[in-house]
């Protein structure tokens, strides 16, 4: 059916590379397992989707920001603060907690976006300030400890499983958000405007894209998405607490990069980010299935980030050319 394949083309990640990486990893882990049963277990799949429901939304938000050739450190702050706000406001009415928590993330993203646009500055430094401020408020609200969430029914509902015990309701919410994001990105102007703004901001502005609105909108959405991840995690753990920078941001950055988002901006799709995030989560759940050192994963993630940062470097092609010339001599033209 050409219509279906056209639609798939439109929504699917660029050239399908992130999906191939994900499948390749699954096959590799399966081969290492070799029928010993550590990897081929339902629990591996479930722990993967559980990890994905935390990492996935932050990765999606950060992915959008990275498509614009920007970076948002404050997402780790929205994530932590929204968790605490959700736990504090959502005991009686869990939806109110979600609204308050996500609202905090949206407002934080919106304000930072406006300042970035107003002062024409890079988002990294500003969002470092935002991160510190939000972590400070988180510490004040939490009083330095974890706050437990009193509504056990919500915690249990989010942990309930479906599809043969492979995914929790929380995971399904995240999947739904991803599908929505992928559809909006593929079928509205927003997707093309984001890519255009990320590839060449001045050019996009000349072509009639409201680049300021795109930047503010993306930072706002990213804040909201990571806030949603924070609230959902706090609800399902039954507690909110402060998290470190490396816990959330490093995984989200790596997920985006594996998922085909370029550090130089202007490349990427929501479902590519999903594949990237799933790859990391599969790696982690697979490693813990083999009783591997979870710290190995942090080092691996760091290594992946480093390699991608190198190959995305502005001078990378030039250096490779220099190396080739040095190794093989210059070719007579």
């Amino acid at each position, binding site marked *: 059916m050409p219509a279906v394949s056209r639609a798939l083309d439109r929504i699917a990640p660029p050239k399908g590379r992130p999906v191939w990486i994900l499948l390749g990893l699954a096959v590799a882990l399966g081969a290492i397992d070799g029928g010993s049963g550590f990897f081929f277990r339902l629990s591996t799949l479930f722990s993967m989707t559980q990890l994905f429901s935390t990492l996935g939304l932050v990765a999606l938000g950060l992915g959008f920001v990275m498509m614009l050739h920007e*970076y948002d450190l404050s997402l780790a702050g929205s994530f932590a603060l929204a968790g605490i706000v959700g736990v504090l406001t959502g005991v009686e009415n869990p939806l109110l907690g979600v609204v308050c928590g996500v609202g905090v993330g949206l407002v934080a993203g919106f304000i930072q976006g406006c*300042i970035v646009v107003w*002062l*024409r*500055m*890079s988002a*990294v*430094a*500003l969002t*470092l*300030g*935002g*991160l*510190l*401020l*939000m*972590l*400070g*408020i988180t*510490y*004040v609200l939490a*009083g*330095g400890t974890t706050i437990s969430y009193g509504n056990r029914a919500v915690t249990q509902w989010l942990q309930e499983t479906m599809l043969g015990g492979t995914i929790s309701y929380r995971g399904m919410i995240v999947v739904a958000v991803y599908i929505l994001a992928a559809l909006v990105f593929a079928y509205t102007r927003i997707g093309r405007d984001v890519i255009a703004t990320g590839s060449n901001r001045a050019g996009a502005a000349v072509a009639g894209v409201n680049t300021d609105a795109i930047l503010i909108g993306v930072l706002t959405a990213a804040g909201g998405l990571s806030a949603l991840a924070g609230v959902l995690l706090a609800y399902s753990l039954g507690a909110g607490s402060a998290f*470190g*920078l*490396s816990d959330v*941001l*490093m995984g989200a*950055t790596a997920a985006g990069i594996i998922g085909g988002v370029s*550090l130089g901006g202007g490349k990427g799709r929501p479902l590519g980010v999903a594949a990237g995030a799933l790859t990391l989560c599969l790696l982690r759940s697979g490693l813990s299935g083999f009783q591997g*050192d979870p*710290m*190995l*994963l*942090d*080092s*691996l*993630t*760091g*290594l992946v*980030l*480093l390699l*991608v*940062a*190198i190959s*995305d*470097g*502005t*001078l*990378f092609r030039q*250096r490779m050319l220099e190396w080739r010339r040095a190794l093989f001599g210059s070719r007579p033209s």
Partner: protein
Amino acid sequence: MNVPGLSRAAFGRERVVWSVKAAVLAVIVGSAILTPGFVTPASAIATLDHAALIGLVALGMTFITISGNQLSLSLGATLSAAALVFVVTTGLGTWGACAAAILAGILLQAAQGLVIGYFGANPIIVSIAGLGLILGIGTHLTGGGEVYPAVADALKPLHARIGPLNMLIVVFLLGVVVAELLLSRTRFGRQLIAVGSSARAAAATGIRTPAVVTATYAVAGLFCALAGIIAAARFRYASLETGAGYDYDAFGSVLIGGTLLRGGFGSAWRTMMGALLLAAVHTILVLRGYSQEAQYILLGVFVLGAVCLSSSEER
């Protein structure tokens, strides 16, 4: 072109920036005077001491910011790693262990600088990768816990004092002088400022930017290692947590001092003043009984304000 209008707007913005700065300074000085116990020798030493540990890392960050690479998020982790190396190698004697720790700090940062300078890699992502690698491998090696020195006597020379000043303050003040001389009196300093102003223009004039950026990060690693050694000697143990959070204070000090975020302009004096200001606020908050959490918020507000002021000055 409406040039007079433009310059009037720029003039107005300049006035706003200056009045905000003056107001903040007035509030800090005012509350310092009004806080009982602030204007005493003891609190002055405590403030200087607090400023020194932040300040050493901040001196390293100053070089990175001037080089046009904004900030590094792996300086705190490098501090921890150097502290761990120092504690583990105390068998080599005090100065042997110091040398080992300094070497570790320089190597960890210089490697990142090489990648950033040679490949033009994104400095923030490289520093996050560095953070992950240092913490990951460090946890694997140490088991994530505290490490105590094999030879406790090796710490003794580092507890020496010169008059009322402890080793940390002495090293910091010396560090400021050395950093300032490096920046203003050496060829490396001038090349660094050229690279920070415009890496492409610097490369066009024959400056080897990869070497300059690598050296910049090596200097940052050196200052982190000094902070790590002194922290380890003071706490009498080291862990991966030793340097956690220093990146933020350091970056705050650099910006509050007035070093420009876009690179190419800044000084060690400015960073020292920034660190002293942050430390003074810290002392005021402690004397007035505010919690650690309130200090985080204030640091966030300071960094936000400094970033906004810094970038509105740049236009």
